[in-house]
């Protein structure tokens, strides 16, 4: 009740303190953007409704889903709509999940999509379609066993797929058959709402974590049994998780093999241990004094938070998106801004004890956009953060140039190390120079030793006429993809490299056409 009282009656904290506002105001940028290489845009036309879903399939292909009931696979080199599209759905697409997505897109073989499978959902329809089978007369696996709208999909091991909504279903991907179904009306909670996100976890028990518009995540254990030589699966609700959010959970993501994180409409981010299913850290997205908030990690009972009935949280404090990089850094989109948290201490070895001690963001920008940030992407090679917002813009952020030159790059090691280095460059971790840190501290007039930095706006991609729903970085060659509520899918290319490609094509063309033809 204390939490509830606090949530209702305590004044909402100001999103930006006065001190911080000096450096953290809404930035504008001139037309001339020398650091913005995305100057060529391809209009990928194929949808006639708001495009809300955008997922990468492989190095050169991505898939979009829209409110026009269409799912379209595109290639990113020329921005062509492939022959792979389908309109089996009869209502707007609610989620897309590439099932055979590879984590490593570096190999050339990753340009072939014929062995890929995609699951899409809309309303009660779940479609599992293998891209190689998209031919006339070949029907995908379609199921309508869900009771309500399917809001989310999650790929599980052993070729299983989990879908969530009003109830939770387990599916066998190869056959498309329903393995198990859990009717959530059995849960003794009056304020139960539809699941909007699911995550597979394997700690002590194999199962899933699901979140709804409720402060408390739900854990379902997946049990396997054999009856008359037939393997059967069962979902069993397990009320292990406690509520540490003050508001409904708005986002759920995996951090590492041992951690996952949830974000809430109250602006907080909780990091959970998969093994213990306990919250181990709480980041206050709206706290601006950077005081140690480890002690504030207190449990609030689920019964005390009536998510949908009592509290209307300020949308500007809502956690809209969490991007996890290097299994350590959480890029959290909170309202119009974003913050970067380190789930571990800055540069000390990770121990469970240290997890309790660091809560200050590394990077802060609370006024990055005029409206809510819906999605984020990070270009690791460029140390560049991309934010897509409801204010119709996509913005590019780089580290504060005053912190340059950064620490020398380490000798080339593993790709993971290089990636981590580039992410940390953005977070200002490698500004080891004492002078730089001191000057930064002086400039910010902040007492803390680990002063969060404010990144610099280096580019703004303005071409959508409505909310930008998602952004996806394909590769340095193929550029960025954005989609929005204006029915548009845009492919943003590096103009100079495209020019170079064109010139190369032209050379070949002219050589063949005019010069080789000469006897």
């Amino acid at each position, binding site marked *: 009740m204390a939490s509830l009282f606090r949530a209702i009656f305590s004044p909402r904290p100001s999103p930006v303190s006065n001190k911080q506002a000096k450096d953290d105001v809404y930035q504008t940028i*001139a*037309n*001339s953007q020398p650091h913005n*290489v995305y*100057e*060529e*845009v*391809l*209009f990928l*036309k*194929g*949808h*006639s409704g708001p495009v809300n879903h955008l997922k990468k399939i492989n190095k050169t292909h991505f898939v979009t889903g829209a409110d*026009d009931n*269409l799912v379209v696979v595109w290639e990113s080199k*020329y*921005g*062509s*709509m*492939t*022959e*792979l*599209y389908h309109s089996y759905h009869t209502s707007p697409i609610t989620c897309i999940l590439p099932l055979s997505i590879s984590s490593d897109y*570096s190999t050339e073989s990753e340009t072939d999509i014929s062995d890929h499978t995609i699951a899409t959902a809309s309303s009660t329809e779940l479609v599992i379609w293998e891209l190689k089978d998209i031919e006339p007369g070949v029907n995908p696996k379609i199921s309508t066993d869900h009771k309500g709208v399917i809001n989310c999909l999650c790929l599980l091991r052993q070729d299983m797929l989990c879908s969530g909504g009003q109830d939770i279903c387990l599916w066998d991907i190869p056959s498309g058959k329903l393995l198990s179904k859990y009717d959530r009306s059995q849960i003794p909670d009056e304020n139960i709402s539809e699941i909007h996100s699911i995550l597979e976890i394997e700690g002590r028990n194999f199962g899933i974590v699901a979140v709804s518009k409720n402060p408390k995540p739900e854990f379902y254990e997946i049990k396997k049994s054999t009856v008359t030589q037939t393997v059967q699966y069962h979902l069993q609700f397990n009320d292990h998780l406690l509520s540490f959010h003050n508001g409904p959970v708005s986002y759920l993501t995996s951090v590492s093999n041992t951690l996952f994180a949830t974000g809430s409409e109250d602006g907080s981010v909780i990091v959970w241990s998969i093994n213990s299913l306990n919250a181990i850290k709480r980041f206050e997205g709206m706290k601006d004094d950077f005081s140690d908030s480890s002690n504030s990690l207190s449990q609030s009972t689920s019964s005390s938070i009536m998510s949908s009935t009592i509290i209307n949280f300020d949308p500007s404090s809502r956690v809209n998106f969490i991007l996890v990089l290097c299994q350590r850094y959480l890029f959290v989109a909170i309202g119009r801004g974003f913050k970067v948290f380190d789930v571990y201490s800055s540069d000390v070895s990770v121990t469970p004890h240290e997890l309790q001690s660091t809560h200050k963001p590394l990077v802060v920008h609370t006024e990055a956009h005029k409206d809510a940030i819906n999605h984020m992407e990070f270009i690791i*090679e*460029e140390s560049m953060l991309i934010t897509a917002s409801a204010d*119709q813009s996509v913005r590019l952020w780089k580290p504060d140039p005053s912190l340059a030159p950064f620490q020398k790059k380490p000798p*080339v090691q*593993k*790709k993971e190390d*290089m990636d981590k280095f580039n992410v940390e460059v953005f977070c200002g971790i490698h500004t080891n120079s004492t002078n730089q840190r001191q000057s930064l501290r002086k400039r910010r007039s902040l007492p803390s030793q680990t002063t969060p930095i404010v990144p610099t706006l280096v580019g*703004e991609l*303005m*071409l*959508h*006429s409505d909310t930008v729903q998602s952004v996806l970085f394909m*590769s*340095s060659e193929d550029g960025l993809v954005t989609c929005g509520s*204006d029915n*548009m899918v845009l492919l943003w*290319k*590096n*103009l*100079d*490299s495209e*020019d*170079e490609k*064109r*010139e*190369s*094509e*032209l*050379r070949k*063309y*002219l*050589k063949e*056409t*005019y*010069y080789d033809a*000469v006897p």
Partner: protein
Amino acid sequence: MAQSGTEPAKRKERDFILLSEFAEIRHGPQPICTIPDGGEGSFDTSSFSVRIFSTDFQQGQSEEFSVSPDSQVLLTETSDGLFAYVHYFALNDIEARGYMRQYCLSYLTASPSKLIDSFQRIKKDFSEVTSLFKCGNHKVFRHDLNARLKDIEFSLDELNEDKQRVEDNSLYNGCYEDIPEMNKSVLLKDREFTKKILDTINFEMQSETNKKFHELIRNCDSNDVVRKRGNSNFYTTASFTQSVHKPKRIMAHLSQRFTRQQRTLNELSSLGYQLAINTLKSLFEKYCRSEFALRMEQMESELLNPLSSLLTVGRVPMINVLRSAVSPPLNYKIISSSDEESLFQIRQQLKFNSSSLLNNENCSSVLLYLDPLPRQRMVSVVDPLGTPHNHSLMQVDPRYSRHSYDPRQPIKEDPYEKEDLEYHENSDTNTRTHNGIYHQYDNDRDNPREWEGSASHDAHQSNERVSSSYNTPDPIPSPTPDMVGEVHPYATPPQINHSDVIKRLSDSHKDQELVASGSTKSTEYKEPSNSLVIGSNDSSRSELIHSQPQMNSQSVPPNKLDLHSFDESSNTYYTPAVPYPPMFSGLPSHRRASGIFNHHEGYPFISSVHLIESSSPHKPGKELVSLFKDVPELRDILYCLLIGRPFAIIASQRDEKLVRRHIRALWLFVAGYSSHHQVIPWQEEQFDTDQLVNVRLVGICKPTIDRDPPIPPHLEKHVSYWDWTTNILSVPTYTGSLLNPILTRTRDKKNEELFMSLIESILLELALKAYVYYHGHCLQSEVIVSKPMSPVEPSPRKMHSVVKKDKVQFFSKLPLKESDINIVEYFTHVISEQQLSELTREGSYRPQKVVLKGHNCSTRVCKPKRLT
């Protein structure tokens, strides 16, 4: 044919075309008509006709019937100081001696060199005209032959019946038996001969060379012609096809009496006559211009091939990067002369000499010097100089031949307002769809008098201007390789008659008002009221798209247009030079792509000579001087257009006409000819995202009520604008140097033609830089980014920096700086895109794309000039 020793005194009247015939009955050689009407002035056409027919033009002595070929003669010894191109042709007439009637087309001019220079072109064009006459005549003649065969058959039957009747007659005494037999033998022989002639004519009609002309005639709406000439007693094809011939008996033993009038040419050629006469009128407009204009037009037409590598600015061909330019030696005589025409000639010759500079061997060293990268790399790429391969570049690629410069297109008053002559002349209504464009024409266009009042009037004006002389210019430096692209102080401002200019302007305004009102009822001929009107028939929504590629409806009748290429939403057709847009979202591309490039398009281009000489109110750049006299920001606006950044003029509804005039003036600076470079004078809708791709210049109506802003917020950064309601101009600031003369010369502008010549020179200089950049950098520089050993991908930034560095080095040697580099880069980009579109024409669908180069725009107060 050699010229006479003493050149006759120059005739002051303009050229004309004379059509003569050899009337075998009563008259002998006589003129039929002149084009333009009365154009002969005091010239004795009768005696000239007698002279040209003094040589009997007969087709051999063979007994066999054959179709006579044409023959051509150049006459340079006329008494009246006129020189003539004479084109003989023969038509078939069943009532004529040997079934032949002799005709002659003559082009008479006071300029012999014009005929000599353009002999081949004139010959080709006149041959097409005579083909129209002859193809029309073939139909008539075939009809006559068929009728005669029926008569013969009928007569033979009658003879047989007579014979039978006589034999059955009891009074038979054998005294009349020889007459029917004689008749019969004559008729049989005649039947045999007629059949042979018919075979010959049928064969001729089916020949490949005549097919296209027959097609043209067939497409004519004969009913329309009949209706229009309801009172005339002409034979028409319609009358032949619709009437049923009643066979009559031929009395072979009776002598034939030529008591009635011979058929007129109109009767002999039927529909072909009208097509031919209209074509002649067009040819007259084409050839009545100065020799220099003709020569330049010829050379510019050769620049159009291959079309994909052509750079146009304001629809004027500037340079073709894959063309070995035609380069006549610079006429140094001209340099010493002083009139405006000569100055213009120098500029234009520089255009080709500069190109030729890049095609000679010395250019290797130039490019070698310009290329900062090792020469070896050039081995693997195209050699722009291609000295040994020049002949291959000169060859016409069959893929482009369909785009070849149609010499009949520029003959219109506004070649950029291309219209299909044949179709137009015979259409039922005055509205038709032309490339998705609705045109409105006057039905009475074929009235020679009305025609005379418009087009020839313009030609007359043009000649007057050409003949007018101006003060002596500054000394002209001789063109050396170092001068490539340099702007020379060609001339001091000429003395002009302001009242003349004002009159011309007012005339053009009058025409424009007619255009705006969409009036089609007029007692006098107007130019096609607005042949570029597109959109719906609703006048409130009809729009002009100046740079819209237009389809050659000769080959693709409007009702046969490929709907796959028609975008219903924008009411425009897409050309193969641009990617094919998706119309049916949700369908895979391969299903849409089939058959989309089946039709072929024609691109209307403007000869730079025509651009400068013509007083047409529709030409690009019209009123540029007047409208931008006191606008110092003109340079920045031009810069905005020349870098391909969309520019919008936003104004209230009442300023629509003025906006249209401004747009027309600025159109001169829009590079490219594909549908990606559209110019829309006026639209009431908000500027939308698709237009960002296709539209470079637009006038937008600003609603009085607060509705959607003319430029939506998400496009504000990508579109420059001039808001007349607030007098705010937001354009990037020009920081180069090449456009500066436009500003300085504008201040003391007194003559629009001269000012446009200056602009053409500046644009040409930029185009030449683009030529060098294209060959010296784009086709030769290769950025080598080695495969990294690490798993980390090469940074695009790294590649970016390499390319940038290379470019900077290259441009520093041109030399170019800042804003001029952007213009040159854009010109090159336009060419590359055209070529790649050609390359991927048969390929898969590629989406529309737009380049959003960020240019910082400065906002300032700028008021439009409101001419009264």
